[in-house]
Every structure is written in structure tokens, then in C-alpha cells.
């Protein structure tokens, strides 16, 4: 006696909403088991992981500061994932965005003219897009897998950043630390005593814009059809090449933007490790948000809470930092598993003899 899957004629609207919530709940439950195994009192660990970070103004503002880059990158990735364009090297595009934008700031240092910051941000966007253009061209012209190329380029970007901050870009007055000078200009702080910067507002604005664009125009349809039925998309006259290129360039541009916003906002200089893997984690955010612009916003908050909680739990409950990564992986597992409920009905397996009249 087993169970079998019966395809639903239409995806279940109810489960579409419930599946991500179920995945989050199952992840929290696994967290409980994990804490027991690690010998940490579960209630204390869960508290320091999920509640404690939000009990202060600083914690709540940091949640937004961490959610913003995740949301920006995920917004860029989602259209591609819908269309079956798998850019998994956003971390590299983010890094190059920060390098190119940061390079502009270092070249103009110590100028604080009003156009310097916008120029750097623009350079960051272009840098990220250029880095994503490489897998796009290789995919379109040479048929090379954008998954592998974009990921390999993420390693290359990280090494390039390391070469720069340990080498020519190292702060001459920085006591030999591997970091650049502090930038002369940076993003303004929105609220005293926090690190909130204008980039935090940008994410919801862009999500709204993406929602209007994808929901109301032919573009959104073209993306979904290309992902689900490539042959049908060609028949309908959607240009596969343009979609591949467009999705990768958009993802690269937003990842580059996230990178330069991090560099000119919370960090204020270039350092060997810019982010705790935002570019990779954004993949989870995109799926937790069901590849929907308005779903990505709450998803980014949930995942940012895991980052923040990981830091708090490390200090308060003595949990290793790696727990955060484990939770993120588990979350994606449970998401994928609960996705089955959206597309299939699960029912007890019938005996095959009974099927024959």
C-alpha cells in the first residue's frame, strides 16, 4: 500500500500560498530537532534565532538592511527562473558591481562632488550586467550552460576582488589590512542609530514595478511560456535569444546594484568578503517568494531573519554560524517538497487490477 501522485488539471491556488508557509514551519521544526541534537535548549535557541533580533530598533533595522540586497537580487533572478534561464552566479555579479562602482569612487577620491555617488552606482549596475553578459553570450552563441559559466565567474570575481584589496587597491594608510580606503561619499543614513539606507526603499519600489510589468504585459506571459514549453514559445513568436539575454542582463544589473549599494552603504569600502553569500541565498528568496515580485518581499524578510538570527544565536546560544546555511538549505528542500502539493493530488495507490473493468 503506497501513495501515488495525480496531476491536478490546474495548480492549486490554496497550496500556492500554503506551500511556502508549510516550508517555513517545517524548517523551524527541524531547527528544534537540530537544537536538541546540539544540546542547546530549543526554546532558548528558537528565541534567540527568531525573536530576539527583532526586539530592538537596531535589530529590526538590520533586518531591512539585510533583506534589501536579497530582495533586489531575487527580483532580478525571478524572471530568468520563470523562463528556465539559470543564473546562479549572482554572487559574482554582485562582487563585480561593487568592484567597478568602488573603482570609480577610488579613482575620483577624495572628490565629494554630487555626481560622484550616482556615477559609482551606475558603474556598479553596468559592471554587474557586463559580468552576466558573459554567460549570456556563451549560452546564445556557443550553447554553453549558463549555470556552470555564471558559477565559475563567481569564483573568478571573488579572486579578482581579493587580488585588488590585497594588492593595488589596498588602503595606503590602512596598516596593511586587506581593504580599500573608506569611500569619501556614501549612501545617506535614513534614521539615526541605524544603518538604513535608501536602497532599502528601492527594493519594494522595484518589486511593485516588476509586478505591474509582469502581470499586466505580454512580457510576463512570454517568460512563463518560454520556461514551461520552449517549443510553444517559439511558435508564439517569442524570441528565445532575447529572453535569455534579457533575463541574464537584468539579473546582473540588479545584483551589481545590490553590490554597489552594500559597498557604499553598510560597508563604506571594499573588503575581501563583501556579503555572507547574498547572491546564492537570493536563489532561495526567489523560490520562497514563488518567483513573484510581491512574494519576494516577505521571503527576503524571512531569509534575512535567518541571517540575523544566526548571528544572535551565535552570540547568545553559542551556535555555530554554519547553522544559518543549514537552515537555508533545509528551507529550500522543504519548499521543493511542498511544491508537489501545488501541482499534484496525493491519494492512496489503487490496485492496478481494479483499474481494468
Amino acid at each position: 500500500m503506497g501513495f501515488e501522485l495525480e496531476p491536478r488539471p490546474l495548480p492549486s491556488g490554496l497550496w500556492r500560498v500554503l506551500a511556502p508557509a508549510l516550508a517555513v514551519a517545517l524548517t523551524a521544526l527541524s531547527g528544534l530537532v537540530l537544537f536538541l541534537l546540539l544540546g542547546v535548549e530549543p526554546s532558548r535557541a528558537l528565541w534567540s534565532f527568531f525573536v530576539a533580533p527583532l526586539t530592538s530598533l537596531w535589530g529590526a533595522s538590520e533586518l531591512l538592511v539585510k533583506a534589501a540586497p536579497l530582495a533586489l537580487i531575487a527580483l532580478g533572478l525571478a524572471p530568468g527562473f520563470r523562463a528556465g534561464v539559470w543564473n546562479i552566479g549572482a554572487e559574482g555579479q554582485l562582487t563585480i558591481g561593487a568592484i567597478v562602482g568602488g573603482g570609480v569612487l577610488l579613482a575620483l577620491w577624495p572628490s565629494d562632488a554630487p555626481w560622484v555617488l550616482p556615477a559609482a552606482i551606475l558603474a556598479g549596475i553596468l559592471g554587474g550586467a557586463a559580468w552576466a553578459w558573459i554567460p549570456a553570450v556563451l549560452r546564445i552563441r556557443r550553447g554553453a550552460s549558463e549555470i556552470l559559466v555564471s558559477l565559475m565567474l563567481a569564483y573568478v570575481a571573488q579572486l579578482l576582488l581579493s587580488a585588488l584589496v590585497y594588492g593595488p587597491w589596498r588602503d595606503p594608510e590602512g596598516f596593511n589590512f586587506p581593504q580599500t580606503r573608506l569611500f569619501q561619499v556614501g549612501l545617506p543614513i535614513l534614521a539615526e542609530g541605524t544603518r538604513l539606507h535608501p536602497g532599502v526603499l528601492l527594493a519594494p519600489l522595484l518589486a511593485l514595478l516588476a509586478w505591474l510589468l509582469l502581470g499586466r504585459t505580454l512580457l510576463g506571459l512570454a517568460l512563463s511560456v518560454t520556461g514551461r514549453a520552449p517549443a510553444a514559445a517559439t511558435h508564439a513568436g517569442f524570441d528565445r535569444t532575447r529572453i535569455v539575454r534579457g533575463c541574464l542582463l537584468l539579473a546582473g544589473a540588479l545584483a551589481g546594484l545590490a553590490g554597489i549599494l552594500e559597498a557604499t552603504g553598510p560597508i563604506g569600502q571594499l573588503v575581501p568578503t563583501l556579503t555572507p553569500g547574498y547572491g546564492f541565498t537570493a536563489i532561495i528568496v526567489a523560490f520562497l517568494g514563488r518567483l513573484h515580485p510581491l512574494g519576494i518581499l516577505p521571503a527576503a524578510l524571512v531569509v534575512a531573519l535567518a541571517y540575523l538570527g544566526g548571528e544572535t544565536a551565535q552570540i547568545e546560544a553559542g551556535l555555530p554560524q554554519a547553522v544559518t546555511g543549514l537552515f537555508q538549505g533545509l528551507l529550500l528542500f522543504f519548499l521543493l517538497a511542498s511544491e508537489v502539493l501545488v501541482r499534484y493530488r496525493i491519494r492512496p495507490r489503487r490496485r492496478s487490477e481494479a483499474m481494468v473493468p
Partner: protein
Amino acid sequence: MSLELVVAVLATVVTAATPLLLAATGELVVERSGVLNLGVEGMMLVGAVAGFATALATGSASLALLAAALAGAGLAALFALLVLVLLADQVVSGLALTIFAVGLSSLAGAGLVGTPVERLPRLDLPGLTDLPLLGPLLFGQDALVYLAHLAIPAVAWFLGASRAGRVLRACGENAEAAHAMGCPVRRVRALAVLFGGSMAGLGGAFLSLSYTPFWIEEMTAGRGWIALALVVFAAWRPGRVLLGAYLFGGVAILQLHAQSLGLLPVPAQFLSMLPYLATILVLALVAGGWQTAAPAALGRPFLPPR
């Protein structure tokens, strides 16, 4: 340059190729059955930490290798559950596997960083090790080097000549037709995925127990992804995996020697980029032309019709 030095350098190429060889051979079998498992990097990491921890705890090399293979297969079983039973997207499930495994291996290995471990013992084959040139190159190595090299002809024979291999290929080319002919598609694919997982686990264990006998977070450094590229480079044929693995082993050793000898006036980071750039170059040069060589059902989910 003396002959001994050349042989010594070539021997390091063989060891640099070994983890790629193990992981890529496993993944090749998985892909020939029609499943794309992008979690190779993650399965290698978990194998590396499981093998390392077991070697520390028991002092037994065979138990360590067994643990590495089981750890890789365990993770692969999770992947099989997702994509074969729950019909989840294979690309995303593979990514999930790697993200999860990076966290899991870092957590499991948190207390092991910096601990020394006994290297896998060298297995000298009497007579063969003393052969000129080939002796030290191929016959003075540890068990995993032999296994990696034996796996190539074994998999080639399995896929090309055995009945089970033909069934596996049928599942990879056309799952519906294979099902109609009575092949247990999902069982075949699950076994292939488990095999791929244990091979990746062993590849990881080679890194932590032989290549650089210590454990450090994310020590695979992209080798799992390079192994995936190797399968494409090899056009899904076992013999060419060997060629590709030596090529990448050569690039890795070349950049190591260039770094240590200071041969080139560039920062070390640029030399470290070489394996990744070589992967991109290889994909750009061969991938498109050989796309027709890919198993036709690669990456497609299969729900047995009722």
C-alpha cells in the same frame, strides 16, 4: 629538468585529477540515466567531512572511505526523494543539495578545522611500482587513485556492454518508452543517483584524506562544479572523462607550481582563477557542438502513467 622531477610533477597531476575523476564518473552515470544532479559539490563536501571525521575517530582508512561513500549516497538519497518521488525540479533540487551540504559540512566539521589526520596509506603493488616511469606515476598511489582509474573502464563496460547498462541508457533516452518495455525507470534512476552520490563522496574524501590531508570549510573549491562541466566536455563518454580530468589536473598543478616558483609576475589570485577560466573556455569551445550527445531525457521528470 631531470626525469625524476617530470615524473614527480606528472604524479601530482594524477592526484589532482583523481577527485574530479571520481565525481565526474559518478555524475556521468547519473546523467546517462536521465537525471541531472547539480549537487555534486555538496555531496563531495559531505563526503570529505564524513571521511575525515571517521578517520580521526577510528583511525581506519577503510571505515573512513565507507563513511564518505555513505554520506555522499545519503545526500543523494535526499535528492532522489525530491526529484524522483516528489517530482521536484532537478536544477533547483541540485542547488538546494549544495546549499544544504555547505551548511551541514561546515557545522559537522566546525571542531575539526586544523586537526591533522593520517594520510590514506599508499598501496604499493609489488613489481608494478618498480616499473620505470609508469611505476611511480600509477602504482605507488592510494586506493582511491586506483579506484578512480578502474571506475572508468568499469563504467564504460557497464554502459556499453552490460544488460543493466542498456536499461539505464534507455531510461536516460526515453523514460516513457523504457517504462512501456517494463523497465523500472524510477528504481534505475534512484540507483544511478546513489552511485553518483557515493562516487562524489569518495572524491571529497580523497581531498580531505589524501590530496590535502586536513579539513577546512568549503575545501572542494568548486571541484564539484568542474566535474559537472567535465561530463559535458566528455560528451557523456567515460573515456573522455579521463582525458578531461587530466587536463584539469594539469591546469591545477601548473598554477600551483607557477605560484610557488613565482614564475609569472602576476598576483597569486590570477593564477588561482585558471581552473575556473579553463572550465569556461572548455564549455564555450565544446558544449554547443556536443549538445546532441546529451541523453535525450536529461533533466525531465518522469511520472509513471497509470
